[in-house]
């Protein structure tokens, strides 16, 4: 049994929600709050601090996490010098970065679900638990912090839960790959990937460039904090199934095409290790289902270069970019009812994924992957192609599947995912929350 090095991150200062993986199965919710007066906002934080848990708690399965948007920090009365020390993209907010993110057309902020993207979103609370009973307990804990507090208003709630299939709305196992972080004491899911520098995910530590992420002012506000990006992604599951049905030779071919688009089989088994057919044992084994690289697949014959998972994490593929600068902690969760198996007609239900990113560099990590590796294909020498699963394809999208003797090229890709809105948030450390709560401006 491998002994992990002792943690060197200040785990007792980092919020559990930033570092601990979500449980599986899970039940959760996002609460968005508006601060109507700064004193009430500070009282909210005073109440929240004892309700939150640090990452030092071992084996934690239930937690509540608190984050603030730039508008929320302003509403709290954070001094201007501190506000100015935040990165420009965080100050602009996700709606303000629509051009950079490719959020145009159906994905544009004009079409977002209210109040996402509005200046009213100030505080984001995320609650998660492994079952309904523990979930109700943590929700009650969250509600006690704001429900009787004049000057703080609940403006949106999104419930999430693992589907009965324990897969994402498209029918694929999710939440598989997580990077190891130096000093965290938490192993990553790929033994072939060296742990990443803590500064890729938390302020106050060296990152992969050797430098430190831009520090906030004062230092207590930034140290051990991180950024949370949330995005409500509506999934067009029926359209996905219909697209495959129209282009596959038979049901087995549908499954192959779907796997090539995703880069994994529905069980989670990676094409890199199971190129011909699904392997449910492999998919279910956390010690093996992410233990691979792509160097032995330089032409993408096992896993296409343009498949979703290979775009999100190219590993050792020869692509434009240094992969270690663009890794992400992802905490995606599902929402809405599953579309029953075999149904190809959309039932009008809102179902999808609450995408969540954790990292110290919104621009270099989340925005970069979205703009350069999802919305574009130049980095793999395929400028005409976008991510076939989540990319903003417009009905004319193309996806190349290398195969011998003749490659397969799928055409007419429509969008299968629509962005219903999101936010850029700052998840302060526990001492930073205390500093914010104690403001006297």
């Amino acid at each position: 049994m491998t002994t992990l090095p002792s943690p060197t991150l200040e785990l007792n200062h980092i919020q559990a929600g930033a570092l601990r993986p979500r449980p599986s199965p899970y039940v959760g919710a996002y609460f968005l709050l508006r601060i109507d007066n700064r004193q009430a906002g500070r009282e909210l934080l005073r109440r929240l601090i004892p309700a939150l848990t640090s990452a030092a708690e071992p084996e934690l399965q239930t937690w509540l996490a608190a984050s603030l948007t730039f508008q929320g920090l302003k509403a709290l009365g954070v001094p201007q010098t501190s506000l100015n020390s935040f990165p420009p993209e965080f100050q602009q907010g996700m709606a303000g970065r629509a051009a950079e993110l490719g959020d145009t057309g159906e994905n544009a902020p004009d079409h977002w679900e209210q109040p996402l993207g509005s200046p009213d979103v100030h505080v984001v609370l995320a609650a998660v638990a492994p079952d309904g009973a523990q979930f109700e307990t943590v929700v009650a804990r969250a509600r006690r912090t704001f429900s009787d507090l004049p000057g703080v208003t609940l403006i949106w709630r999104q419930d999430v839960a693992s589907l009965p299939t324990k897969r994402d709305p498209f029918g694929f196992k999710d939440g598989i790959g997580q990077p190891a972080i130096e000093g965290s004491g938490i192993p990553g899911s790929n033994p072939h990937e060296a742990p990443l520098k803590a500064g890729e995910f938390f302020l106050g530590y060296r990152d992969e460039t050797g430098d430190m992420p831009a520090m906030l002012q004062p230092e207590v506000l930034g140290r051990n904090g991180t950024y949370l990006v949330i995005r409500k992604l509506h999934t067009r599951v029926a359209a996905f199934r219909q697209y495959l049905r129209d282009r596959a030779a038979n049901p087995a071919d549908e499954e192959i095409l779907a796997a090539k688009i995703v880069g994994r089989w529905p069980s989670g088994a990676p094409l890199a290790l199971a190129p011909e057919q699904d392997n449910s044992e492999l998919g279910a084994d956390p010690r093996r289902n992410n233990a691979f690289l792509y160097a032995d697949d330089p032409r993408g014959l096992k896993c296409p270069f343009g498949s979703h998972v290979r775009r999100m994490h190219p590993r050792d593929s020869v692509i434009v970019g240094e992969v270690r600068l663009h890794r992400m902690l992802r905490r995606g969760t599902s929402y809405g009812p599953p579309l029953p198996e075999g149904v190809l007609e959309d039932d009008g239900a809102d179902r999808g994924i609450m995408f969540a990113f954790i990292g110290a560099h919104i621009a270099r990590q989340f925005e970069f992957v979205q703009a350069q590796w999802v919305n574009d294909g130049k980095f793999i020498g395929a400028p005409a192609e976008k991510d076939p699963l989540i990319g903003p394809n417009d009905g004319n999208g193309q996806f190349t599947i290398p195969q011998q003797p003749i490659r397969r090229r799928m055409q007419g890709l429509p969008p299968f995912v629509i962005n219903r809105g999101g936010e850029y948030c700052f998840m302060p450390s526990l001492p930073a929350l205390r500093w914010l709560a104690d403001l006297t401006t």
Partner: protein
Amino acid sequence: MQTTTVTLSKKSGKGITDGVISELTAFFGVKPGCTEQLRQAITRFDDMLHNLDPKANEKIGLRDSRMVLFDNGTRMLWTTTFETDWDPYLDDALLIVGVQHFMDWMKYVTEAETLTSWVVSAGGADILSDTNSPEFLEVVQKNSSGLKAIIQSVQIPATGYWNALAATTIPEIRKAQRVETAFQQVLDNPEAAEALQHPALQPLLEEAAD
């Protein structure tokens, strides 16, 4: 460890684009008395690029690089083109190429004064003489954001830019070269003409005559 604050303007380094290519145009001042040293450093940088592992260059996406000393050696122009948006990939390029290669010439430009004076104070003047030393690398790497800020601060988007191969990426060009080589091998086969008669191969047959 000391970290310098580089008080340069916070601007992005977005150049203009043509097809898949973005351009970077940057103007530097040459430190008085350092023209010849900069000239030699530019030669070393050029040699490094010529000897760069093709896979490393594919990871950078660099299409070309040009450094010009002008105005009697008092100014330097650096132009490059990249096969992606340049600015988002600058961190990657600095890491993949190695900051020591950039510092080797940047220490002779006036814009890097802040950075070099800090390097000297952190490790002494000797540290600049050996840009391959672990001490130098450690010191510079810990302020790579300063390097990036310097380049961004002297970058000016071109007013006009055109590239004859703007629509094509290097991997596509290399694929085309491999296909051409394979096609010529096919044509060299005495049975090629007969093999290319199949209707599906008509487009290739049309290319076979020259």
